[in-house]
């Protein structure tokens, strides 16, 4: 037995299940939460995650296979994927690989969305590069939905994760991602991207929100459309 990681909500242990090398994912009790609230959240997420993983596997998206589910103890057993977390290798990748990987991720997320699955936590920590494939892991915040809004939130969170963790690679990564997504979803990608833009404007204190634009200043690099000054 080897502890693979103590994630934000679960402990992942590498172990054996019959002859398989597997990961046992247990959602641990959080002492900061009310006990009733805590067990409700943990068992709900465990069951949902198992379902989402199984569905994703069926439609050909690289995800771990679910071998066992124990809702009462908030535990699932899934097969072990040998590889590297995208978060840890991304900044060292040559641009051609970066494009390939994000194109593949775009296709995978497209397939999920097409099948009515929203991942809910698309960050580079939740992607494992293994044998030329990118595996999506941790469906703990996923759910079933075909709503434009939910799909757009999924992509908004992914873009934000890229911006905060890999600020120097956002453009290449996201453009390639959109290319892959477009292959699966076609023109629909444009409505998703428009909605993503809308969601970003809902955030607190977004410059473009009321079409007010700021004067460019030496210490402040304006984002697009922020060049006019605010009247006093």
């Amino acid at each position, binding site marked *: 037995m080897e502890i693979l990681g103590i994630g*934000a909500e679960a402990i992942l242990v590498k172990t054996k299940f019959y002859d398989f090398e597997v990961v046992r994912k247990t959602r641990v009790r959080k002492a*900061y939460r009310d006990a009733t609230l805590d067990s409700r959240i943990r068992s709900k997420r465990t069951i949902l995650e198992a379902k989402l993983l199984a569905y994703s596997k069926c439609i050909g998206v690289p995800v771990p296979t679910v071998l066992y589910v124990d809702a009462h103890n908030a535990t699932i057993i899934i097969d072990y994927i040998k590889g590297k977390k995208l978060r840890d290798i991304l900044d060292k990748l040559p641009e051609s690989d970066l494009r390939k990987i994000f194109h593949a991720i775009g296709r995978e997320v497209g397939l999920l969305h097409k099948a009515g699955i929203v991942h809910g936590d698309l960050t580079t920590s939740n992607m494992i590069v293994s044998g030329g494939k990118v595996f999506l892991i941790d469906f703990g*915040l996923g759910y079933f939905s075909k709503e434009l809004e939910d799909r757009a939130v999924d992509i908004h*969170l992914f873009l934000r994760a890229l911006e905060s963790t890999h*600020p120097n690679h956002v453009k290449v990564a996201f453009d390639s991602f959109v290319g892959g997504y477009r292959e699966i979803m076609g023109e629909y990608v444009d409505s998703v991207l428009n909605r993503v833009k809308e969601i970003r404007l809902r*955030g*607190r204190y977004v*410059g473009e929100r009321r079409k007010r634009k700021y004067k460019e200043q030496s*210490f402040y690099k304006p984002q697009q459309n922020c060049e006019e000054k*605010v009247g006093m």
Partner: protein
Amino acid sequence: MKEKDELIVLGIESTAHTVGIGIFSSKRGIIADEKSVYRPAKGGIHPREAAEHHSKKLPSLLKAAIEKAKCDPHDIDAVSVALGPGMGPCLRIGASVARAIALKLNRPLIPVNHAIAHIEIARFTTGFHDPLVVYVAGGNTLIAAFVEKRYRVFGETLDISLGNCLDVFARETGLGFPGVPQIEKLYSKGKKLLELPYIVKGQDVSYSGLLTKALQLYKKGSSIEDLCYSLIEVAYSMLVEVTERALVHTKKKEVVLTGGVARSRILQEKLSTMCKIHKAKFASVKSEYAGDNGAMIAYTGYLAYISGIKIPVNESFIMPFWRLDEVDILWRS
């Protein structure tokens, strides 16, 4: 008396309901922090009335601050002001006064982002070097960390802020303002966890549905104690959960809580419990600097000043929607 090599920076805060003047000295630290808070008779903040309050209070606050700091106005080396984010009418008052002082004394004017000031004062008073920042106030709820020259946002509310959610709940149920201490008083008397929406989307939270549902249950006659217990439990747990996600994701070793809601003992305890699991250190900003204040603007203005940041008076426009991740943090590497 001003010492040799001592730098003194004046800071003006007027982004929302608080108007404040702070003075920071490079030798003596924070040497003045005067403020006055606008309290509406009923309802939320009316921007114009708040601005009126600020313009009435500023002259006496300025005088009191300079007296307290025991310095001559001419000892001031730079004038800093929060140009945003905040309410336009309120921002204009602080900006006008700052411009006037800068011109009168012939000193540089330093633009300060209000959110960055909350972060910097938290680092200053806790001594934490590179923390994950949880910034919770009436206008903001976000989790940020320093990556590549800027404070990047790792999670935030998708709609209303935590402080706003609790304040509105308290107001609608007649608990008064500020809402957080009132709700927390009843929290300990609540026994039953009511079913309220627990909404975490990735690293973001959403509070508007929670507020609506809590008010609906109140109108249907649920016990106010149980409601306060459930509301606090759900609202804080959501925030702690996304903080935990951000902590694991960024691998930071320290977590700091800042902003008006940072005074909450319950939230502090929950975050501290979470930090222990991940062996991270936790601290909350010194309570006197949790709410909006001029000292944090003066201190951040000082950091900006020694990094060479200043703004010509005729370009010092207010920026009501100035996001913290648009500011280059030149004083950190």
